[in-house]
C-alpha cells in the first residue's frame, strides 16, 4: 500500500509544480499586458500610428509566453481545463489588446483563428477558449466610446461613423449567439450601451454638420495601407 501511495504523492506534488510554473508565466503575462496597454495610451492625445507601432512590439512577448504555457501543458495533456482559471483573465485582456490594435489598423474584427495565429498557437496543446475570445471582444467594445470622444475632441470627425458601423455589426453578430442569462449575456448587454454612447456622439457631429470637415485629418489617424505595410 505504501508504495502505491508514494506514487500518489508524486502525482499530487506534480500538479503543485505545474501550478507554480503557470503562476510564474502568467505573472510575466500580466507585465506584458501592462506594457502593451501603456504603449496605447498616447492614442488618446497625439499620433496614433506611433502608438500602434509601439504596442505591436509587445506581441512577440505574448507569443513567447503562450508558447511557454503550451509547453507546460504539453507535460499534462488533456488538462487544459483543469488549469484554465490560471490564465483566463489575462487571455481576455490579451484578446482585448490584439483586437483593438487590429481594429485601429484595419478597421475590421480580428477572428478567433487570427488571434491564435497571432499568438503562435498552431500546436494543439494550447488554444484560446471561445468564451474568453468573446469576452475579450466585449472588453474592446467598452473601450471604443472613450476612443471616439477623444478623437472628436481632437477634431477627427469621421471616427464616430466608422465606430458606430463597426459596433452595430458586432452587436448584431452577438445577437446571433442566443446567449442565455449568464455572465456573457451581461457583458454583451454592455455593447448596447457602448453603441448608444457612440451614436450620441455621431448625432452631435452630424447635426452640427462637422462630418465633412475632417476627412483630411481622419486619413492621418486611420493610417494608410502603405504605412501599415511598414509596420508589419
Amino acid at each position: 500500500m505504501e508504495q502505491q501511495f508514494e506514487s500518489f504523492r508524486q502525482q499530487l506534488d506534480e500538479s503543485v509544480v505545474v501550478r507554480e510554473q503557470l503562476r510564474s508565466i502568467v505573472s510575466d503575462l500580466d507585465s506584458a499586458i501592462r506594457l502593451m496597454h501603456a504603449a496605447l495610451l498616447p492614442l488618446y492625445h497625439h499620433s496614433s500610428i506611433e502608438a500602434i507601432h509601439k504596442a505591436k512590439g509587445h506581441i512577440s512577448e505574448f507569443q513567447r509566453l503562450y508558447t511557454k504555457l503550451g509547453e507546460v501543458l504539453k507535460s499534462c495533456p488533456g488538462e487544459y481545463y483543469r488549469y484554465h482559471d490560471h490564465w483566463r483573465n489575462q487571455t481576455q485582456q490579451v484578446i482585448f489588446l490584439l483586437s483593438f490594435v487590429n481594429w485601429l489598423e484595419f478597421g475590421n474584427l480580428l477572428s478567433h483563428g487570427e488571434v491564435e495565429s497571432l499568438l503562435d498557437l498552431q500546436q494543439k496543446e494550447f488554444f484560446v477558449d471561445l468564451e474568453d475570445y468573446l469576452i475579450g471582444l466585449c472588453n474592446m467594445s467598452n473601450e471604443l466610446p472613450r476612443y471616439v470622444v477623444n478623437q472628436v475632441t481632437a477634431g477627427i470627425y469621421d471616427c464616430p461613423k466608422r465606430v458606430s458601423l463597426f459596433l452595430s455589426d458586432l452587436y448584431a453578430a452577438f445577437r446571433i449567439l442566443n446567449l442565455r442569462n449568464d455572465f456573457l449575456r451581461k457583458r454583451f448587454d454592455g455593447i448596447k450601451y457602448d453603441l448608444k454612447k457612440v451614436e450620441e456622439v455621431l448625432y452631435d457631429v452630424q447635426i452640427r454638420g462637422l462630418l465633412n470637415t475632417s476627412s483630411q485629418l481622419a486619413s492621418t489617424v486611420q493610417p494608410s495601407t502603405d504605412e501599415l505595410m511598414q509596420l508589419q
Partner: protein
Amino acid sequence: MAEPAEKKQRAMAPDATLSSQFEKYAAELDATNEKRERLVKASRDATISSKKVIFLIHRINEASKQTLLEQAERDLAYIRSTHISRIARELQGIEYWKLRRAYSPGLQEFVEAATLVEYCKTGKFLTLENLNKTFLEMKDASATPFIINVEDYLLGVGDLTGELMRLAISGVANGQRGVSQFVCSFVQALYEGFSLLFYNVDYGKDMNKKMETMLQNLVKIETTCYSVHVRGSEYPESMIVDSLEQQDIVPGIHTSF
C-alpha cells in the same frame, strides 16, 4: 387503530408489509416525479423558444419589421400548440397548483414574449383576459380549459420591463429616438399599476425584488429619455424630426412625441 390484533399479526412479518406499502408509495412518487420531469422539460422548451422570440424582436429593424413580427406570431402559436399544450395535457385538478413550480418558468417567459410581441405590433398592453382567450381551445387532462393564472402572468409582465428597457436603449443606439419616450410612458403606467396592485398585499421577496428591478429598468429608460431630450433640445425641432424619419419600430411614436 380499530384492529390492533390484525396489526399485531402484521408486525410479525414487517418486511413484507412494509415493502408492499412502500412499493405503492414508490409508484406514486415515481409517477409524480416523472410527470414533474416532463413538465420541467416542456417548460424549459417553452422558455428557450420564448427567449428566441424575444431575441427576434430585438433584431427587428425598419426593413424587417413586418416579416419578423409575422414570424414572431407564428412562433408564439407554435409554442402554444406544442410546449404549452404539452404542459396542459399533463395537468388535472390539484396538479395545476401542485406542479406549478415545474412549469411556471416556461409560462412566465411565454407571457413575457407574448406581451412584448403585442406591444411591438400595436403599442398596446396584452391583457390576461386576451391572452387567455388564445388558450380557449386548449384543454387539460380532465378536459377543463387551460388558463394562465394571474401570478404567473404578473411575474411575466414584470420581466417584460427588462426587455422594454433594452428596446428603448437600442432604439436610441439605432437612431430611433422616439421609441424611448413612448416606451417610457408605457413602463411608467405599468409600474404605477403594480404599485397600486400590491399596496395591501405582501407577495413576499419575489414580488418586492421584481418591483425593485422594474424601478431600476424604469429609471434606466427615463435616463435614456433624458439624454435624448437634452441632446435634442439644442437644435430646432425640425432638424431632429428630419433625422428620425421613418426609423421607428414602435407605432404611434410621432403622435405621442
